[in-house]
């Protein structure tokens, strides 16, 4: 008996809280993945960023619109993370926020369009395509799955489950890839056989969105 869940500003706030919880819980794992093909700080970067985001959002009044909240979250990531993931996720959330304009309640379409904008932001800034062994390999399939499910008129919660699964599949798919972007690309063929840390945190963040929406249900 799924009652169609509604996405509103409280959903965004709990999405960010869920994300913070997830990257904190997986901090060591993400850092360990980054040690293998990067510089061993991805978990710390994401934890630092989403800690600050939850703090920043806690300070906002409840009337703030979903779009505004995402813009605040994005700016907070940009100004606290540094590294590659800071500007990338920061831009992603800001673009998503802008795409929502001043809607107070979001439909599945709105959500899918917002993630579209997020993906565009990441690609505009980082110029990665799928197959480059980056967060894009998790984000792109998630967005695609979400659109597909929404068009098939599945409930948002269900659609997000599919998106999260797609993200995780994309994450696992980075293992055999040779990195063409980011630090991992310096390793050339030595980057093959390792799962991309950014794709991994991305999968966590999509799962967090699913959980936040489900909680509303």
């Amino acid at each position, binding site marked *: 008996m799924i009652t169609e869940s509604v996405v509103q500003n409280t959903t965004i706030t709990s999405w960010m809280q869920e994300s913070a919880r997830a990257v904190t819980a997986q901090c060591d794992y993400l*850092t360990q993945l980054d*040690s293998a093909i*990067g*510089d*061993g*700080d991805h978990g*710390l*970067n994401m934890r*630092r960023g989403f800690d600050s985001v939850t703090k920043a959002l806690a300070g906002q009044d409840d009337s703030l619109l979903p779009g505004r909240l995402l813009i605040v979250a994005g700016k907070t990531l*940009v*100004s*606290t*993370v*540094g*590294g*590659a*993931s*800071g*500007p*990338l996720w920061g831009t992603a959330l800001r673009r998503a926020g802008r795409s929502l304009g001043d809607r107070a309640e979001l439909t599945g379409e709105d959500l899918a369009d917002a993630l579209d904008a997020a993906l565009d932001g990441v690609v505009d*800034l*980082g110029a990665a395509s799928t197959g480059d062994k980056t967060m894009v390999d998790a984000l792109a399939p998630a967005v695609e799955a979400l659109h597909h499910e929404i068009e098939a008129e599945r409930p948002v919660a269900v659609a997000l489950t599919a998106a999260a699964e797609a993200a995780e599949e994309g994450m696992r798919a980075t293992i055999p890839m*040779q990195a*063409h*972007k*980011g*630090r991992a*690309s*310096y*390793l*050339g063929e*030595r980057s093959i056989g390792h799962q991309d840390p950014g794709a991994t945190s991305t999968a966590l963040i999509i799962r967090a969105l699913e959980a936040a929406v489900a909680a509303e249900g």
Partner: protein
Amino acid sequence: MMTTATLTMKKFLNDPDEIVEESVAGLAAAHGDLLRYDAEARIIVRSDAPVADKVGLVSGGGSGHEPLHGGFVGPGMLDAACPGAVFTSPVPEQMLAATKAVDGGAGVVHLVKNYTGDVMNFKLAAEDAADEGIEVESVLLDDDVAVQDSLYTAGRRGVGATVLAEKIAGAAAERGDDLAAVAGIARQVNEKARSFGVALSSCIPPSAGKPIFDLPEDEMEVGIGIHGEPGRRREPLASAREIAALMVDAVASDLNPAEGAKVLPFVNGMGGTPQLELYLLYGEVESALRAAGLAPVRRLVGSYITSLEMAGASLTLLELNDELTTLWDAPVQTAALRWGV
């Protein structure tokens, strides 16, 4: 957890999360005549900044590469440095604050090492600076020949050439060159410089508390960067002579300088390698360069762009011309490089 890290890490620190803040504060305490630390904006600024009508020179990046960049702030070199967390690019707010702090009305040059994170954060900062009406020229440094530059990589990393570009562009700015000229000189240094590094040990990021990679007693990492990342390949540990030959060949074959060209070899320590070894390696490098028909006329030997306590070294080879040589010889007064004053 943090306490354990502190107490079981063989480092002089109090709290791994505070290591950069506290170290920069110590730098400022030791060199108050040259620079000040703005703890609010998290930037290291030349004490007399902004210098009216002088092009401002700003660099920055992850920490753990000391003396880069803070040790190079002062007359004749950088106007400001933005220290990020260890091995993590600083955030745009820092670069923006630094840009404002050093803008003397002649515009500001950003010297950016080519790492995805640094490039993106500096890019966002430059956009913000433009919004505030400050003219910014960004110069990308990517001298590391260990990484092949292709559509399929993030491009070459910025390593040793950064030190040389900061010194030489700093001299150009001090001399009164305009924004385009200072940026042009920095780009020229980057075009004329190539680097290659070798690690004998890994390093320990304070927040992780353990080495990034383990290196067997009889192996070395060849083609490393400056973030403790593994190199392009592992090889059996070789003699200093063999390593020097490897380095010289890697940089010279890529730079491909004119026969008999005047060069500046920069033998850099990665942080944990003592001078006894660095000078021994330098001697081998100089011999290899001469054997290759090149003429070292200026030199730099020391640990100037490091990777925490990593044992290792890199060679940066800069092909000189009269202009670059004059600017190299010009006075510089910083914590880490000082001559002519």
